[in-house]
């Protein structure tokens, strides 16, 4: 009796092994970054803590954000997004996504729940999710994390406590976002998640 093959999927294992032997394409093989030579393979840095504020009653950043009506915050914290509200949430998230892309030149945006499950993903970089969740969780008390993953590609991870529970926003940007912009994005994301 074959002692191994009945216990695993040989085709899947072979595929994984072949994947490891192939070179990894850079996420954004675009312009060269004069600050880093070919030997640079990335770094991680944590920003200043971004406290999770209460859902804003008024939008002080309404000059730059789309206008959204803000109902009272929900009474009970929901651990995950339930099916009916998920659809509504996603509809609002598209507005947020468009704003994020337009105002911060963000691409490859994705959103994960506390378990790392995908809520929204336009990134086509599913392999980032595991890393994103782990990094965001490990720096939860500190705030957002950005990782240099290419010459002009930064993966920005913004963990955020919302009325739907803990979520992680991921987006690709050309340069690390300053703390003030992270704060604005966090507030808008909380606002987006607070609406019912």
């Amino acid at each position: 009796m074959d002692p191994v093959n009945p216990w695993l999927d040989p085709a899947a294992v072979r595929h994984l092994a072949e994947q490891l032997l192939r070179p990894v394409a850079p996420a954004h093989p675009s312009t060269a970054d004069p600050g880093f030579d070919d030997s640079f393979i990335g770094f991680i840095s944590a920003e200043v803590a971004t406290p999770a504020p209460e859902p804003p009653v008024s939008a002080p950043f309404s000059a730059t954000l789309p206008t959204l009506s803000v109902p009272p915050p929900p009474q009970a914290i929901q651990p995950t997004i339930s099916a009916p509200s998920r659809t509504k949430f996603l509809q609002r998230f598209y507005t947020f996504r468009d704003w994020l892309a337009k105002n911060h030149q963000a691409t490859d945006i994705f959103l994960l729940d506390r378990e790392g499950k995908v809520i929204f993903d336009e990134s086509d970089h599913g392999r980032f999710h595991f890393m994103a969740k782990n990094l965001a969780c490990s720096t939860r008390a500190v705030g957002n994390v950005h990782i240099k993953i290419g010459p002009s590609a930064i993966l920005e991870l913004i963990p955020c406590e919302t009325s739907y529970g803990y979520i992680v926003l991921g987006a690709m940007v050309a340069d690390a976002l300053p703390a003030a912009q992270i704060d604005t994005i966090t507030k808008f994301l909380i606002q987006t998640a607070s609406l019912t």
Partner: protein
Amino acid sequence: MISIAIVSQKGGVGKTTLSVNLAHAFARAGLNTLLVDADPQGSVGLSLTRQSRLLSGFYDFLADPSIPMERLIVPTRLETFSLVAAGTASDYDAGNGTTGAHLARVRTFLFNASTRRYDICLIDTAAGLFGVTNDIISSADAIIIPQQAEPLGIRSLPKLLEGLNRLRITNPRLNVLGVCLTMLQQNLIESAEAASALRHLLPEEMLFQTSIHRDEIFIRASAKGLPVGVLENGKNAETAFDSLRAEILSKLAKSRVTATYQPH
């Protein structure tokens, strides 16, 4: 300096034996070799130095990167062979198992080592893909995967391959040199069948031709705190590691692996 991490999903597959004896094989070939014990159990240190528990080591550096390399590096009787023990802080909280917590310090350590004119840095890691081990894989130039030639061990392979594929996102330059069969017992049908199954399962270039056979001489060598080749009757085992060394050097040359950490 080329840094090579020895990694496995499962414990007890012969990682430390492979690390110690492969490092010795590189050193005997005249390559300046640094063996780093990154396993909090401190197995390399226990194998080679009697006072390893008193030495500052890799985990002390992670806790305090101001410790100079000179305090970490332990010379051996072979001029080209040095080691860094796990250290007195090896029970130090290794980042709660989270990835990325020590990435910058692991890279600093490797850079510092590269300034000491080492050709090869072999890193014996803790089993499993988490915490510091992940940070090492995210920093090394290459990895070798020892795989025990027995069914249970091979069944853990998919999980390891999945994890390594994920880690290559943070280290796209990582070169997977291959899987090395260890503890092979040709006279035991289950072991021989498991080895055969693995050869059919993996692409040919993923598996080293050299296998390490189970041999009581490894236990005797470990008991004396020596690489196996130093013992009487250790020549056969030593030849296997020489053969593995040759395969590794050939793969490094073929895949044109270049050192990430170079002194300025």
